[in-house]
């Protein structure tokens, strides 16, 4: 049985989306940061850094949210989220790393300012600088999306799922997508899929509670 560790207000939602897309049976263990459940001896055995998410699948144990999705797609998504042809697979791997290495530092940097700080405390210069550096990345996506509906071709794949769950940070922090209509349309198409809708519906009340605490 596959086990996923990490709460609805962590990057575990990315993996929940993937697990739902694949229609796999799994157990979700929602660790509570507030109660330090991620520092328990049992958890530190599978993730010595105490970070979430972690996936356990038989004797395979791995962390890194976008890496977990790559693993799941490769193992369980053949012909679907992990397409059959080499060209599309190459793009799935490429966009997963691109999302992690190029886009996430900027997108995460931005949402940190929005989530953990009140409006009056935000570093406007930092937000502006990050937005400027995000632009060329979205332009690169737009170039690809001008040629095909999705990042690896005409179908929704791992590439879209992994990049969309990073773009989510931009969307949640009022990023202005106006100059990149193709990216915005692609995001809505991808993010709105039923598998993710199910995850987001479960997340909503928990996230609202957390935001109330943070922004109080």
């Amino acid at each position: 049985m596959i086990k996923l560790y990490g709460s609805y207000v962590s990057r575990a939602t990315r993996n929940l989306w993937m697990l739902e897309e694949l229609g796999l049976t799994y157990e979700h263990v929602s660790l509570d940061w507030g109660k330090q459940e991620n520092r328990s001896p049992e958890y530190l055995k599978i993730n010595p850094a105490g970070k979430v998410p972690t996936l356990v699948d038989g004797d395979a144990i791995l962390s890194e949210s976008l890496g977990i999705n790559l693993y799941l797609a490769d193992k369980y998504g053949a012909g679907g989220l992990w397409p059959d042809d080499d060209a599309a697979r190459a793009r799935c791997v490429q966009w997963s790393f691109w999302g992690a290495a190029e886009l996430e530092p900027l997108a995460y940097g931005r949402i940190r300012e929005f989530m953990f700080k009140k409006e009056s405390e935000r570093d406007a210069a930092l937000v502006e600088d990050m937005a400027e550096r995000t632009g060329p990345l979205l332009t690169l996506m737009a170039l690809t999306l001008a040629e095909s509906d999705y990042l690896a071709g005409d179908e929704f794949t791992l590439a879209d799922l992994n990049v969309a769950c990073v773009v989510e940070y931009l969307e949640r922090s009022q990023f202005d997508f106006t100059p990149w209509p193709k990216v915005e349309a692609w995001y809505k198409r991808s993010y709105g899929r039923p598998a993710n809708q199910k995850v987001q519906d479960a997340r909503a009340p928990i996230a609202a509670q957390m935001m109330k605490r943070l922004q109080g």
Partner: protein
Amino acid sequence: MITLYGNNRSRATRNLWMLEELGVDFERNMVDHTNGDSKKADFLAINPAGKTPALTDGDAAMFESLAINLYLAMNYGKGSLWPDSQAGQAACIQWTMFTATEIEPHTVGALIELIFKPKDLKDEAVAEACLAKLPPALNVLETTLGKNAYLAGDAFTAADLNVACVVNSLNMIGFDFAPYPKVTAWLKTCVDRPAQQKVAAQRG
């Protein structure tokens, strides 16, 4: 046929290492990322971001150096750099992603300041701040290498290659590996491999 784009002063050397390990035939295209050649139309058709390295393999075209190595291992390294076991494959993916997110941002940040910037623009404080973020990641490697000889178990895999090529860049700035004896020994074993030595010799 596989073609690797990028010269020996780019991260293409990581992919060369992988290609040499795998022993597959490939061609080089030494497109230069410093003189504007990587921004010309013929290369932009392969990588619209205009960065090197990039790889074509039949009708597959991709960029992102660590992703290229993972793709090559998955396709051409079955049973060796891409191990057969599910646990080994999971480790290869995890460590490659870990190096991209937890190590490389900091090593690159330091290298930019200490090596690539002109003398009058170098900011040692920025470099120090980057290097100060490395210990947690290096400690995770140290712990793992205290259990097995390599990151994914007892044999050298894509996990080691992808982490080693990033960690080894710290030797360009005389990084002190003394607090990490397991990492030091493992890194030496990795970079001493004939495939990497061949690449290093070409690089000069």
